[in-house]
């Protein structure tokens, strides 16, 4: 199986879908001539030309609005946000218009737009560039929210996102772009709304997504080696629709849960998930549901402190031991 970086896997998904469907276009700041701020779209302009790969002005409200309107008329735009942190400039376009248009048109108008880009901390880019808005996005009925953790999932999920007829928000991670992983050859599509058990175990379920999956897997190895604890890692992959069935099946096996997320803890994806698990699996729980999130503060600018603000393997290990007590 070929080994690709997460960045290449996304690029392959874009190229394959641009090839497959002539209505697919890529728009964003620096996606064309500069080959992308994070080089995800490298080479696409040369291959597909300026009608398909479009550089936009530095105005998220404007170009996202353009994309939303185009999608209503049959185009399948894939919009790049240089940072997902800038989504708030286009909040009205994304979450007031795109999210509601199918409902408000009585199903007459679809909005098959994909908005993608990195949403993460840990790179010393400051509090205004480090947001993780998956909880804010997922709070809106009518949208889909995807946070892939591996190269294979990134490719397969982006292809599903582009083919989906609803707004899909695809949250990547600059610290994952260089991570390598095996990606199946040929047509590789991962359906939205399906979680993936990344590691099987019997003593504790870690429910997580995005880069925290990697931290959780690293911690799980230490727990197995040093503590004899068998940890199952469930990667949600899609935040909305949420695959609660896979989570509950795992909880029924291990009876203990730790939720790990690169989110501020207040009203996060993890807090919603904790509610849903206890509601559906109360009698399966042998301990309270534990959560590990980003420390509740604006993204800290000091690099060594920022590392400790975010989930990392040693913080996951500590939280897992508490959940196993």
């Amino acid at each position, binding site marked *: 199986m070929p080994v690709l970086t997460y960045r290449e896997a996304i690029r392959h998904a874009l190229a394959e879908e641009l090839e497959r469907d002539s209505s697919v276009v890529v728009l964003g700041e620096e996606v064309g001539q500069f080959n992308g701020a994070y080089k995800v779209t490298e080479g696409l302009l040369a291959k597909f030309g300026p009608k398909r790969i479009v550089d936009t002005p530095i105005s998220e409200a404007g170009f996202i609005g353009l994309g939303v309107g185009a999608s209503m008329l049959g185009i399948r735009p894939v919009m790049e946000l240089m940072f997902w942190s800038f989504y708030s400039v286009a909040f009205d376009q994304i979450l007031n218009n795109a999210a509601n248009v199918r409902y408000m048109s009585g199903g007459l108008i679809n909005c098959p737009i994909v908005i993608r880009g990195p949403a993460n901390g840990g790179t010393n880019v400051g509090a205004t560039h480090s947001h993780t808005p998956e909880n804010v996005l997922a709070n809106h009925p009518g949208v889909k929210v995807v946070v892939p953790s591996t190269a294979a999932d990134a490719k397969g999920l982006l292809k599903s996102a582009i083919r989906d007829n609803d707004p899909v928000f695809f949250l990547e991670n600059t610290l994952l772009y260089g991570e390598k992983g095996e990606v199946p050859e040929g047509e590789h599509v991962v359906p939205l709304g399906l979680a993936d058990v990344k590691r099987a175990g019997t003593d504790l379920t870690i429910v997580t997504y995005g880069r925290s999956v990697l931290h959780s897997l690293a911690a799980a190895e230490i727990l197995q080696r040093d503590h004899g604890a068998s940890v199952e890692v469930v990667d949600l992959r899609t935040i909305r629709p949420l695959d609660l069935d896979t989570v509950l099946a795992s909880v029924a096996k291990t*009876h203990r849960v730790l939720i790990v997320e690169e989110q501020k803890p207040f009203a996060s994806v993890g807090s919603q998930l904790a509610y849903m698990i206890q509601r559906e699996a*109360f*009698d*399966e*729980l*042998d*301990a309270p549901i534990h959560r590990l999130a980003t420390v509740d503060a604006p993204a800290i600018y000091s690099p060594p402190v920022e590392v400790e603000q975010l989930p990392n393997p040693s913080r996951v290990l500590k939280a897992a031991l508490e959940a196993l*007590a």
Partner: protein
Amino acid sequence: MAQIIDMPKLSDTMTVGTLVKWLKQEGEPVKSGDMLAEVETDKATMELECFFDGTLLRQFAPAGSQVAIGSPLCAIGNPGEKVETPAAVPVPAPKPAAPLPVAAPTPPPAPRPVAPTPVAPALVPVSAPAPAAVSSARVRISPLARRLAAEKGVDYSRVTGSGPGGRIVRADIAAAAAKPAAPAAPAAAPAKSASPKGGADAWPWRSVFDPAPIQPESTAALSNMRTTIARRLVESKTTIPHFYLEIEVDAAPLGALRAQLNAGLGQDGVRLSVNDFILKASAAALRAVPGVNASWDAAGIKFHGAVHVSFAVAIEDGLITPVIRETDQKSVVQISTEAKDLGKRAKEKKLTPAEYTGGTFCVSNLGMMGIARFSAIINPPNAAILAVGATVRKPVVQDDQIVIGERMSLTLSCDHRVVDGALGARFLNALKDHLEHPALLLV
């Protein structure tokens, strides 16, 4: 002049007592309030109190001997005083049973109007105890552990939690379930059947290949209790014309009520047994049909104005029937608390005679040991005894459909001299109605 102390009558059924042990020896000074000896009656072991000041001059009965009521035990007087050995009272022989007139044929029980299908009553806790200000008594247990405890029949109030803050977790319940049950009186332990799942404790009985002899050939001396049980039951079965009435009760409403109450009262340490409700319902039925709350007496039939329900407790080497006085005046929770205390002290042989005499009706329950139905021997001078069987899931016909019901069998043994068939049937129907409409037992 020396005072002679005789064997006192320490229980209403006692005829002889065993002097277990002297607590004061000859020549020892004694004063009023001292304990002189331990005496075992047919029901309990008690201390013999001294009501005089002086010196214990003579002991007339050695430790271990049986002494009839009224026979001398010891003498107390001034030091050096001479005492004669007084005459002992002979141990009385049981009276021969008087010939009985032939009982008249039992009239058929009057047909009862069929009550409409009872709808499970909405249950409102009437007098739940006020919750404690601080629920420190609440057991910390994970939801999973609580569920497993219920599935495995583990009493988690006895389990020590290993989780944070002493929380009971799954592993603690698994460990408790793996251990054998806490030792209870052998007769009272629930009958354990072979488990189809296999494992070390799957077969609770002796190994099929055990080569040892089943037991040594021997004759055990009769204890006072065994003697009393033998005398009284032979007397009962040979002099009382027993007849038996059986009725089947829908136990589902009672089960639902009990589950609700135990769930709601668990944090207050209340755990009501089926038997607690049977005692309460029996008292209620005796109020409704007081003719059963009576005794045969040579002078005439005594009708009792108060309801004192006793219940059989299996103890080492026998059984005893402690009494819940004024049962009809007490709440189920009060009855439960009292029954637990009486049962515990019965097993320790610590009951006082007042606590196991004077009952007007008796309940014997083998349901918790899986017995579906049985007939009990009347405990004189009661006119009837109720034998309670297990609640069994079985097919029943309801609205012309066969459905799974929860049924409990009740068998009433009646003294035909006092209770005729129709009266006994009325009592059982009253009892059935109360058990099938158990919310009334809470009022």
